[in-house]
């Protein structure tokens, strides 16, 4: 759009525009209803539903630190460690587990050349549209945030301080569309 941004929003529970350049920061996008889709071309796409679980029974490592979820005293979740200084400590997301389910995530490329209180006509270009599922159900999603002296918990000198834990349970409402389009200088 290079200077032309969708400006007007209408009843947006959650409408996101993800742009890979900063000028999109001021944009607000309105969701299109099914009928409005008939005004645009190239309506193919896919509709995704399903459930995803992480380390439901444990991961593939079995050692003094990691084990099956039935093993007392061992962690069965996944672990991510990263560091921002060359010789610094490691930020850790540890014991990541849980599952979530969704229904109706859609993916398509479509042209916006109408709607949005007239802004669509000015916009007049294609976007990648992620149609968000109405509800995402989280079940026992949990992880710990920690600081560690080493990347692996099995490395010599390993010390770790768990800072806090997060647990998620229940439904998250995600409505509307996530529109992804390039802007700025490629």
């Amino acid at each position, binding site marked *: 759009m290079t200077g032309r941004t969708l400006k007007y929003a209408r009843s947006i529970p959650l409408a996101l525009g993800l742009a890979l350049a900063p000028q999109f920061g001021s944009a607000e996008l309105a969701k299109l209803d*099914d009928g409005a889709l008939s005004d645009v071309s190239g309506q193919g796409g896919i509709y995704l539903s399903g459930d995803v679980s992480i380390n439901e029974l*444990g991961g593939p490592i079995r050692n003094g630190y990691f084990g099956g979820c039935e093993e007392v005293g061992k962690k069965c979740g996944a672990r*991510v460690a990263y560091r921002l200084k060359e010789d610094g400590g490691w930020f850790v997301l540890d014991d990541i587990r849980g599952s979530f389910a969704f229904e109706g995530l859609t993916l398509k490329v479509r042209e916006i050349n109408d709607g949005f209180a007239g802004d669509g006509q000015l916009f007049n270009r294609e976007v990648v549209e992620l149609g968000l599922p109405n509800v995402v159900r989280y079940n026992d999603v949990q992880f710990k945030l920690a600081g560690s002296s080493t990347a692996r918990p099995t490395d010599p000198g390993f010390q770790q301080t768990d800072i806090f834990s997060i647990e998620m349970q229940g439904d998250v409402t995600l409505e509307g569309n996530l529109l992804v389009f390039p802007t700025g200088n490629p």
Partner: protein
Amino acid sequence: MARPMTQTRIACLTPVLGGWLGLAAMPAVGELQSLDDSMMSSISGQAGVTLELDLQTTVDRLSYFDDGNGIHLENVRIGSATDPNGGAFHKIDLDIEADGSLNLGYLVEDRRIEFEDVTLPGAPGVGMGGLFFDHNLQGTFRLSPGSTLSPDGYTFDSAYTMTGGRIGYRTNGNEVFLDDITMDVQAMGVTMDVVGDQLLFTTPELIGSYEVGAIRYSDNPLNHGSSTDASTGLELPSYGGFKGDFNLSGETYIGGGGRVGQEGIRIDSNTQINSANFIYLDDGNTLGLRDITGHYNLTDLRIDVDKDWNGREALALSVGGLSGAFNIGRIELGNQNKSLGRLNVSFLFQDQVIRGQSYTNALYLMGGGHADAGPQGLRLGAQWSLQLADFSYTEDNNRVIFSGLQSWGQGDVTVNVTRDEVQNGTRFFDGLRVGFEGIKGGYRINGLRVGDENAPLQGGTELLLALGFYPAYDFELDGHLTLGAGGASGEGLTINSDVQIRNGSAALIANPYDEGAGEIAQTGLWVSDLNYDMHIRDMTVDVTDEGLAIIKGEAWSTMDVGNLRVGDKSSGASFGRFVVQKYEKGSSMTILPGGAGDVCAGGMGSDAASCEASGGVWETRGEEGVTVRMKHVLARAVSDTRKNAFTWESNRQLDGSGNPINDSGMKLVLNDIYTSDGGDFDGDGVEDNTYGIQSDIAVDVYQTRVVKKEDGADSRGVVGNRGDERIMDAGAPEGYRYVANPTAADMQNRPLGFAVQAEARFKELSINNIDLVHPIGGAQTAVYGVKMQNFDIKANLTATPIQ
């Protein structure tokens, strides 16, 4: 026993007839069948002339001329297959019946027909390579006056058995050949008539079977048509064997007159595949294409000695049209009698214009092959034009059709039998080398149809990405694929390959190119301005007891996407440049027949009751489908080209034409991504890396739940409320309706989609560093290492194409 030599002119009758019959038998497939004794006795002569001879014939050059242009078979020989200086035994019983029919009974032993090279005057010093054909033949042939069309025609009845056969192709002392061929063929009631200025051959029924014991490779110039190596005495390596049977019928018109000039050959034919089976054998394990039926029509095939579009002299085969369809009833893998499902393909090769350029279907055969591989080889100047094809996959009676496939292009394909060596700076490998030189082409798919051919066109072709197949692709292709003999153990394939794609555009998401009102610009999400280098070393392919096993020795690639565009592939807005580098050692993939079977979606439980008690949905996805087990072992970086890395570059400077200049913008680099087992457990001083990223993916075509996301009318005017389920209904105006509370019967008519059960796990996945790179200031490391451990991700997903 010394056998008398006889006149060559008479003796040559048998090879001519045998050759003609051999050509007729080529499409055959299946299980071996014996000839019917009563049928044979009815056409055997009881009295007449018996001829016996040992035939040894050599011809320095045999030439065919078309409008003054010649093509030459060099050093033609007919003689013994086992003794280069010996003759082939022939015995012919000949008699004429009271109705005037000519009866031949023939026995041929130890015969080789071969020529050492095929040359064209316009290409001195190079040739296409040589062919040899060894065989024993026993059969009968009856020629009767009169046909079904006319008393002036002829009727042929033929039946023969070939044993101990070999057919080989030889270039520069290396050869690939079909070994230990056995074939039985019966063609009764074949008629020949003159229709207009053409000969018409009508074949009411051509039935037969064949078996090829092995496809062998030799790199020893001392070997020629032998199953064992002349130097070592060891059996030559094998690609595996195959067998099959067939039942065909059809008619063929043969006339004079080529595409150019006054002379040449024209062939038109139509063939019905009444039944056929094909089975590939690898150490006794099978890949079977069973219950094949179909038909094809060949229109206006012309054979000329002509020049190609680059003015190179060649044997030219050009086709007016080729259309047809075939159905493979079962695709079996392994020895457990499991099927992937059913495949159906319809196709039409015909001239077309793509983006202003005309394409046709033609093949120009020239000598030479790859320029560095030696003087012998085959170069095919090829142009293809697939105007329309649909291919459908059916498993457990659920069918998905990939509709509107078009393809076009032209370029050179070279074929050489090569050995492991470096010649003139080019690396060659053991095997049959298929080279690509300057091939410029593309393909595109219009969309998906679910259920049958008349279903509405839908999106979803991007689901093919899971198989590594882009929904649309334009490319310029160079490189080679060398197929070596022998797999991970015993028979099988070993593949070495180097392929480069230049100036490509591939769709990640593609909208239709024709929505029913004519061609439109195909929009989507494109990897454009694509340069892609791919290299594979020692990748083995084997059919095993349970499926198809592929083990990569070493593989590395660089996929440089100049622009990731949304919209039009050339002018759509760009997200910037993306470079994906891969380097794997010891990765593998196994393809298994059968999908997920019984699945508890959204819950846990091993039966319907426990699954539903946990809140899940118990699904019985059937016996067919496909399961893929993959292991990606990401190796540590050893050089700038052999590593795993991801780069995103944007804000590039523009050249005078407004095109972004690579390496002039800001980059985000995820450098040296690798897997590990998490330690040096075998004590060799190097961290173990054998586990990799392991993924099991089971795919079924299955009914999926699709709910309406908004109240009101949808894009086709069908009204429903948010949360209503879409139910397919042939009686509804748009083919479906929305239902708030679907019944059990409604649920049997849910839309078809792809149901995927997947599990991915890895012990350790690391990123050495994440850098931000300024074009002048250089790299600044933002993250000094990322280490992910102990992941096991399971998913039950359904992907449904939508409009």
